[in-house]
């Protein structure tokens, strides 16, 4: 076990007690990155070597010098008897959509490849103020549009540390991979349809999507602004609580950030689940998929090992004192992806308008070109397939002629999905749940290339996670076992601002399964 394999809460402890310095911890992380990460993501499209296919490729940029200075500052404060903050000396990575002053923020797109941010995101600022060390920026699907990282313009794309022939999931794939491979104990991801939870499940880490508005979005390249949630990826529940504690809260730069006080997420973490009511819904045991011929929405059961993992988790929680309520109806779950398709693309198309070659980023054409051809070349050459598809569909379904039929209808579906959750979490209702326990994903990680670029099929990878984004509620994915050497994740969904309760339940599951043999398994890249 090396320093970089410790959890964040263990690291702050040994730094505070001077068993190791922040610089030593950072160097351990850098050493691990050097060992397993391989070539960083870049626009260079050279073919991948055999060697490349064995590496993780989580990072686009490693900020070694800045990180070293920050670590030295933490060490000086410790030496002087000062408190560097909640995350003293804890290294972390950030998805490359977080703006950090003076560094490149690429969104894994050619169009932003040369964009250096002149300002810093609120979340990054808060982590730095609490002593955390930003080690680097990690890869993602281009503009977060995807669930596998295969759409990143920065190659090589991240590979799953448990089996590098498999995807990391996405879009926070670099985040999940960097945490799973021991490169950093914490990563900041974003979740618009499951982009934190799904890669967390695929890579065997914890991933937490907070309530919409719990964490500021200021400084994060936007995908779908009404759905985007920044949140932590970590190796255990306590670390997720720690990072959330550091980033949550009102922000004068984001008026959609809630002004509600932030509770102490660590205080009740070990309090167990006695008296908690946890639901299971068969609507989350069915995979919905569009029939390729008719377009009809069909359903089939989730794989046995996924169902077994959820039922096993329910057993552990029941043994720990929770009440398990079965057959909770969530009838609108199956419409979540079609509604997301429409809403997210309308917002994405609008959010992508600003990348026009005028102010920053890639500019196509040559001086003297007329405006329209500069626009066309910029966006045609700068955007990859995913942004283009989203612009096309987003423009179409929000056009004056079609908005009623698509966009406004999707908003109604969204409200119905929200109502499903309100009903089961209602204190005076028939279910009175504290949380709903579901699979995070329909399957474990799939092989790189398996989807063959089918972006509709890819979207359905998020079908158990996306409802939380529609509803704005928090969700957390926890490692819950393996299938053929690949991690399986389970998900807890709770009412608005119930992060403390979800973390508490997650921690109870973690404790209840601590002795299980799979807990000691190590990713392939570390063998």
């Amino acid at each position, binding site marked *: 076990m090396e320093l970089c394999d410790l959890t964040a809460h263990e690291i702050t402890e040994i730094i505070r007690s001077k068993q190791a310095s922040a610089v030593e911890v950072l160097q351990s992380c850098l050493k691990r990155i050097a060992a397993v990460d391989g070539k960083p993501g870049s626009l260079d499209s050279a073919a991948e070597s055999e060697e490349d296919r064995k590496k993780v490729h989580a990072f686009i940029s490693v900020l070694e010098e800045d990180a070293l200075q920050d670590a030295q500052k933490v060490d000086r404060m410790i030496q002087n008897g000062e408190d560097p903050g909640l995350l003293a000396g804890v290294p972390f990575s950030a998805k490359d959509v977080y*703006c950090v002053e003076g560094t490149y923020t690429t969104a894994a797109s050619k169009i932003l490849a040369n964009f250096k941010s*002149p300002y810093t995101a609120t979340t990054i600022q808060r982590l730095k103020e609490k002593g955390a060390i930003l080690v680097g920026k990690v890869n993602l699907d281009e503009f977060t549009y995807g669930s596998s990282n295969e759409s990143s313009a920065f190659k090589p794309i991240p590979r799953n540390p448990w089996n590098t022939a498999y995807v990391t999931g996405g879009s926070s794939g670099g985040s999940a991979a960097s945490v799973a491979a021991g490169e950093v104990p914490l990563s900041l991801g974003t979740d618009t349809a499951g982009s934190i939870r799904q890669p967390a499940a695929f890579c065997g880490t914890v991933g937490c999507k907070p309530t919409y508005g719990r964490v500021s979005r200021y400084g994060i390249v936007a995908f779908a602004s009404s759905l985007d949630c920044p949140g932590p990826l970590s190796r255990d529940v306590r670390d997720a609580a720690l990072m959330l504690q550091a980033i949550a809260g009102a922000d004068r730069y*984001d*008026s959609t950030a809630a002004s509600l006080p932030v509770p102490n997420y660590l205080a009740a973490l070990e309090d167990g689940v006695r008296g908690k009511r946890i639901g299971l819904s068969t609507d989350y045991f069915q995979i919905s998929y569009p029939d390729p011929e008719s377009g009809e929405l069909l359903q089939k059961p989730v794989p046995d090992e996924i169902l077994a993992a959820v039922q096993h988790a329910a057993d552990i929680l029941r043994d720990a004192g929770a009440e398990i309520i079965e057959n909770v109806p969530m009838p609108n779950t199956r419409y979540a992806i079609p509604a997301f398709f429409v809403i997210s693309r309308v917002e994405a198309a609008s959010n992508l*308008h600003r990348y026009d070659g005028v*102010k920053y980023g890639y500019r196509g054409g040559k001086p003297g070109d007329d405006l329209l051809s500069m626009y066309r070349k910029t966006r045609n050459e700068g955007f990859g397939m995913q942004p283009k598809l989203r612009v096309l569909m987003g423009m179409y379904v929000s056009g004056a*002629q079609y*908005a009623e039929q698509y966009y406004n209808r999707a908003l109604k579906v969204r409200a119905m999905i929200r109502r499903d959750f309100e009903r089961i979490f209602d204190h005076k209702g028939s279910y009175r749940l504290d949380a709903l326990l579901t699979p995070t994903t329909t399957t474990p990680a799939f092989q790189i290339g398996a989807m063959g670029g089918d972006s509709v099929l890819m979207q359905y990878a998020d079908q158990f996670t996306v409802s939380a984004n529609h509803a704005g509620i928090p969700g957390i994915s926890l490692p819950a076992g393996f299938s053929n050497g690949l991690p399986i994740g389970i998900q807890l969904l709770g009412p608005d601002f119930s992060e403390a309760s979800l973390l508490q339940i997650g921690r109870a599951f973690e404790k209840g399964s601590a002795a299980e043999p799979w807990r000691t398994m190590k990713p392939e890249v570390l063998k």
Partner: protein
Amino acid sequence: MTEYEVVIGLETHIQLNTTSKIFCSCKADSWDDEPNTNICPICSGLPGTLPVLNKAVVEKGVLLAKAMQAQIRMLSFFDRKNYFYPDLPKGYQISQYDLSLASGGYMDVPMPEGYIRRVNIHKLHLEEDAGKTKNAGNQRLIDFNRCGVPLIEMVTEPDLRSANEAAQYLIRLRQLLRWLNISEADMEKGHLRCDANVSVRPKGSDQLFTKTEIKNVNSIDNIRNAIEHEAQRQIREVSAGRRIVSWTLDWDEEKNELRKMRSKETEADYRYFRDPDLLPLRLSDQWLGDILCDFPELPLERRARFISQHNLPEYDADILTGERNFSDFFEAALGAYGGDPKKVSNYLINDILRMLNEKGLTANQLKITPAYLAQILKMVDDGKINTSTGKSLLDKVETSGESPESIVEREGLGLVSDDSAIRAVAEKIVASHPKEVETYRSGKETLIGWFTGQVMREMRGKADPQLATRILLELLKK
């Protein structure tokens, strides 16, 4: 020959005089700034930035909505108006669409000819401004300073019937905006921008025909001029049996003519949708109450009251309600004085207004306060000073800041009302002008004015003229 009627609707953009921009903390006004020096990551649309609404913008919007008799929506929304233009850094403008801050409303505009034209408001909403594009050869220069400057867009129904009516509406709107301290409303600086939609129709028709849109006009005179030109052109076209085409026209001030910018193709699709980065705008009763708690009497209301309550001529009432500080000055001075409103009006219109114009001040910045002016008026009424002393006091008070009474005291400007002092001078005058005395006594009694004048001259204007006359009458009787 058919008689034609002009139908005009005005679209105004009002730049609010808030301290900062609508969604960031850059200052709102960039008039004196070099291009691209009053910008930040937010108003220049950098990736990841978010808008945060400036409350002062909402407050000014509420004031205007109230003044226009519009219905204020307690819940309104911001929407994205999506389009590409180099000076629009986000590629969308944050505006209000279907559920804006206010709906309906009107202004009753008094016309110089004596009738009132009701102008209904079609929409009133808050939005951010875009930047400016300048063409320099084959280059486009873009200045983002104006991005995020708060605007109210206010569009009238096609209720105006002549170029002059349009001008009157703008004059009254400008007056109102300044009165409420919503905008500096300077058209030349673009604080108040106006596009005019113009069409013509046979008199008596209530149909609306194809309109043209006149843009880029930067003064009220030019608007009047441009509409007049366009209306005449349309009448010529229609009379010659040609159809009006829906053009956008640009006013060329130098050449005093309209230039065709483009034919309007199909209506653009801006793909409006609610901006997810901003919460719905909720006005609480408390907030609304705070905004409206000292909502003032409006200029046109006050104008009407000055005419009915103070019996002032329309001309006076108009000038006395032209600008709020000046109007308040009048009211305060009249209150302190308590005498004839017309006398106060005369001082304001003839003297105070001149002082203001000369010094470039507003009435509240004068050292001469309403109370001081009232003091002067009372002293004249009481015969303590004469009218010309009264007028000369204005400048003295303004220069020194001293009260008129103490200046009169110190400089001995008061009228002599001492019987014996005046009698002595009067006796001297009578004694030294035997010929005039004879003429008077032979029946030319109007000569009394001449005698009084002599006394006044002798006493360098400080004698109480009424007392002097009485004494003279007495002496001349003998």
